[in-house]
């Protein structure tokens, strides 16, 4: 892929905790440890009802496996650093932001309004400036999708300021 730097990164001079390998491994291990701790709060089945192993045993084993394997990949990465893609562009963060906007609008106002807002936001930020196409992705297409799901699948979408206009 053109966007991937095939050469190994020249960040060997960076302190280890600034390196992606360390940060990723740390996050995986940190989350795994938190989850592992939470498994100790799972209810324990009385011996008479217990079949085989306790419900917490299997997730515990998996988490220990994940932690161990992550430690291995981190150790291996010291010798062979990972190949990481180029720096993330602004459009990526704007797309990520659009997801957040989607969540907020769909939770507070309306599910379809959220889809429309995300569509126009993404399309515009990705470079679309023609009004017709912006309307197509933000209004015409979501309406078609709504009608399709509503009529063919008989789906009832969550209530909201726009969806209610259709339902009531």
């Amino acid at each position, binding site marked *: 892929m053109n966007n991937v730097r095939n050469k190994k990164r020249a960040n060997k001079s960076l302190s280890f905790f600034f390196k992606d390998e360390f940060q990723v491994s740390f996050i995986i291990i940190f989350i795994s440890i938190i989850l592992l701790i939470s498994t100790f709060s799972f209810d324990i*089945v009385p011996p008479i009802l217990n*079949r085989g192993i306790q419900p917490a045993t299997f997730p515990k084993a998996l988490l220990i496996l994940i932690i161990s394997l992550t430690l291995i990949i981190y150790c291996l990465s010291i010798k062979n650093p990972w190949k990481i893609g180029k720096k993330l562009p602004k459009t990526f963060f704007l797309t990520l932001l659009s997801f957040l906007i989607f969540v907020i609008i769909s939770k507070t106002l309306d599910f379809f309004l959220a889809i429309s807002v995300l569509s126009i936001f993404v399309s515009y930020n990705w470079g679309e400036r023609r009004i017709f196409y912006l309307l197509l992705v933000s209004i015409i297409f979501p309406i078609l999708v709504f009608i399709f799901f509503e009529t063919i699948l008989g789906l009832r979408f969550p209530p909201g300021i726009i969806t209610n206009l259709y339902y009531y």
Partner: protein
Amino acid sequence: MLTPLFSSKLLIVLLFGTLFGLILGVLPGLGPTTGGALILPFTMTLDPLSAIVLLTSIYCAGTYGGAITAVLINTPGTPAAAATCLDGYPLAQKGEAGRALGMATVSSTVGGIFSVIILVFFAPLLAKLAYEFGQPEYFALAIFGLTMLSSIGEGSPIKNLIAGAFGILISTIGKDFMTSIDRFTYGINELSVGIGFIPVVVGLFAISEMLTQSTLLDQVFKRVALKAVKLPTKDDYKKTWKTILRSSGIGSFIGVLPAEGGTVASLIGYSEAKRFSKNPEEFGKGSIEGIAGAEAANNAATGGAMVPTLALGIPGSATTAVILTGLIIHGVRPGPDLFREQPDFLYGIFGAMLIANVLFFIFGFFGAKIFARITLVPNKILWPMIFAVSVCGTYSLSQSIIDVWIMLFFGVLGFFMRRFGFSVVPVIIGLILGELVEGTLRQSLVIFDGNWLMFLTRPIALTFFILSLIALAFPLLRSKKQNK
């Protein structure tokens, strides 16, 4: 075999599935796995056979469709077509795009049909063998499937195993199926039923790809013009028939292995074609054998991957994991009993795959030029539309907004996983095998009265454990050999 398909409804479903699969295959970033997951909610309006026929035809045609973009714009429409780029695009640059696509179409069709024949013969045999399987054997088989993740071709073996373990971990969220004790629910009621397969698949494939596309907006495709697809010449056939047959065999075999799929099959098919070729120096510069080797293998993996899916309920690839979910949603339980109780249903699937291979040959041969134009749809219009369908499709299955949040979460997670070299396919396989692994382990321990060593007294289980060790060791040995 084709009798169950002689209904206008099923033929329309097949036609639609093949066309839709081709479109998905052509569009880089989409593919049969994402497409299958997106269309799964729509299959609820269909009867079980039509639904699975739709999914399998998308699978077959989508796998082939990736070759069109691989040849014309040097970007594989699907990961399975990555090896096709190596020789397809250089040949197209020499002004022989039609010949390259002709060879890709013929070898894909031969590989696909070959694998359906393998499916027809081997799936019932494997199903018969599965009657010998008890809980310990199924546990060992599932472990074998998971260890095979270490060699799926994408990412490092250890990262794949981490992703697989993560997939199994996701399957433990919710009420424990044996004791009804909540695990990882943290008081959220919606999580007590567990995390659905579709939100995870759509998130990991479609939404993470949308994020990936947001980083590639400045990418410019160098498109090669296509006049018409040309059937291979006598000379081409002479050069490639052995390669096509060999790759068909390799692809079918790789497909049968749990968790492996078209990507690995095409890479091995390609490298074997090079190894056996009289002109290995032509590889990478537009070798017709290279195209044949890769394309026959990746399409042959489709039928192969359906063998463990139908006979054992163990998916042979990410797309068959979606098909497996489709079967379960429609109340069809894959496994040996399916072969005894619903032979018509199975023969319907076999027949549909056979016809789908013929259909994509026709569509590919006459319509490749049109399908190639689909890639002209700008991402800034295409992806917001895919987002709308993804969100509604995910919501529709259980009409839960939480599923949409889960989809978005896995979308972001999937993006970062791919960025740091973790393949997302093992998460899917782990998620679908998770309940089987845990359930069979716990039931086996009940049978064995908690004695783990008893697993080693079961010959079939022991064989799978040994195969698992080999599967784990294989990537290590391969990388050592490559380092040498």
